[in-house]
């Protein structure tokens, strides 16, 4: 279902003129109210008067995560604190967290975007939403919550954790829509199985999963184990939270970006050059309606490409492909650039591999070694040692063929590789460089 027919199916020409107008207003406003942007624009010798169309965006400087950290906590806010009604923060695993603010209108915009997203995934006002995204400083929980209420659905604000209780709620309350991270959905499936609860007997029809990258194979696994239709949702707190882009249930092929609120570009992460549609690079986002925390050409570090082809669902908003990696989790192993997501897609193509794996990188005698631990599934298990070794070799060969790196594959017992309820910890890099 399309929640906002007027905007989501707007002809491109009309959309682009709205974008230009909103971009110009945003640039003028940040120039006037945020010293960081004024200084950056002055340094680049460009002013609000130079921005007259969407293509002029390319003339503006980028904003990075480090810029946000340097202005911790409120330096990037574009309105007085009197007008800020909500604060969120992203986790600060390295350095300070990033603090973001919302005005009343920002909260309204975000709820609208999340209502669109839930509807795109198949939810309607008659649904019951089991919202297992974490509530708190993380934007996932409250973002999905407000969107579900805006849509008119019933929300169960269960948040993350206490998985056994979640299974009981899923069984007794009859939710029809699941919102959580994709890895947590599989964790729920395992927990349900252990408790003798089958997803076939539950009422779920669809799930809107995000906050971490996941593969097509993981989608197939989730859809099969949880007996629902799974779509991908994208967002980041620096830009607004979840709801920046979402897949439609009709195509399940790329995420429609809410272009009436954000302008997307793809750049070469090394040179900053803007790449044409279809080419893979770093996603850069500019917000054009946000009041409290606007961002200009924010470098997301997420790797993807844009697809301008019309979509079967009728939405005119451009689609971004599933995130295939992060510019900052790119590993260099023996001089080869490797994204963990690429390893994941290799693994998921092999019959019998569970979506639970861990990459361990060590350095022995100045040589990098890659060990991949993979959980052995019921279907891959054989009573013959040589069959299991053949299975290990097959994975190692696939990786060798694709990356030219020799990997040691080690089979692990089921459920011995840590499940994370947030972003899964897939990589252990023990190299001291």
């Amino acid at each position: 279902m399309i929640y906002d027919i007027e905007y989501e199916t707007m002809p491109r020409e009309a959309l682009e003129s709205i974008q230009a107008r909103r971009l110009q207003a945003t640039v003028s406003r940040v120039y006037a109210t945020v010293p960081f942007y004024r200084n950056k624009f002055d340094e680049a010798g460009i002013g609000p008067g130079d921005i007259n169309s969407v293509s002029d965006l390319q003339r503006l400087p980028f904003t990075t995560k480090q810029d946000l950290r340097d202005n911790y906590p409120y330096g990037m806010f574009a309105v007085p604190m009197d007008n800020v009604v909500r604060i969120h923060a992203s986790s600060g695993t390295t350095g300070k967290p990033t603090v973001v603010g919302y005005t009343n209108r920002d909260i309204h915009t975000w709820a609208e975007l999340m209502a669109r997203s839930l509807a795109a995934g198949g939810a309607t006002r008659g649904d019951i939403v089991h919202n297992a995204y974490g509530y708190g400083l993380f934007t996932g929980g409250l973002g999905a919550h407000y969107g579900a209420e805006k849509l008119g659905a019933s929300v169960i604000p269960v948040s993350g954790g206490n998985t056994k209780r979640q299974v009981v709620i899923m069984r007794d309350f009859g939710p029809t829509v699941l919102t959580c991270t994709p890895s947590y959905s599989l964790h729920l499936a395992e927990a349900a199985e252990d408790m003798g609860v089958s997803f076939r007997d539950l009422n779920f029809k669809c799930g809107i999963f995000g906050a971490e990258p996941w593969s097509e194979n993981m989608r197939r696994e989730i859809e099969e184990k949880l007996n629902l239709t799974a779509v991908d949702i994208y967002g980041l707190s620096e830009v607004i939270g979840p709801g920046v882009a979402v897949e439609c249930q009709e195509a399940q092929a790329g995420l429609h970006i809410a272009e009436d609120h954000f302008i997307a570009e793809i750049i070469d992460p090394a040179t900053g050059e803007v790449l044409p549609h279809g080419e893979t690079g770093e996603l850069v986002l500019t917000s054009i309606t946000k009041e409290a925390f606007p961002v200009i050409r924010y470098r997301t570090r997420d790797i993807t490409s844009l697809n301008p082809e019309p979509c079967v669902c009728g939405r005119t908003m451009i689609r971004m492909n599933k995130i295939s990696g992060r510019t900052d989790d790119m590993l260099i192993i023996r001089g080869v650039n490797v994204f963990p997501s690429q390893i994941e897609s290799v693994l998921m193509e092999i019959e019998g591999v569970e979506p639970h794996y861990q990459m361990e990188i060590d350095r022995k005698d100045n040589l990098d070694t890659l060990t991949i631990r993979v959980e052995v599934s019921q279907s891959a298990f054989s009573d013959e040692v040589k069959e299991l070794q053949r299975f290990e070799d097959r994975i190692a060969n696939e990786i060798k063929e694709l990356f030219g790196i020799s990997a040691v594959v080690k089979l692990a017992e089921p459920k011995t590789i840590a499940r994370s309820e947030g972003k899964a910890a897939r990589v252990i890099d023990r190299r001291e460089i």
Partner: protein
Amino acid sequence: MQAEQISIFLENKAGRLSEVTGILSENGVNIRALALADTTDFGVLRLIVDDNSKAEQVLKQGGFTVRKTKVVAVEVQDQPGGLHSILDILHRAEINVEYMYAFVRQSGNNAVMIFRFDQPDEAIRVLSDNGISVIKGANLYSM
């Protein structure tokens, strides 16, 4: 004529084997024969027990990857050349032995070997034709 074996995947970590035997003994499952094949990082434990379905169920509940495998229990004369004559028959019939191990109890005066074949039905036929006794699963579990 085939018998059933329980195979369990084990990582080479201290204490895993005793966890398996612990789960089985707590649930009153008796181990009749056991063999462990291992590599540097994992092993496959093969068991003949007196209650296959119970063993499979409690081990799966304990988080182990388990599967049932068809094997053949063969009586071997307890005298020099007893095993050799059997292997010789199989070799001449071009039947592959994937692996084999000894059963704890004897059958009368004969030893018992557990064989895993790639073609178990053919193996049973060839052995029987040559006067070698194959023990039925039901008899094996209660020996």
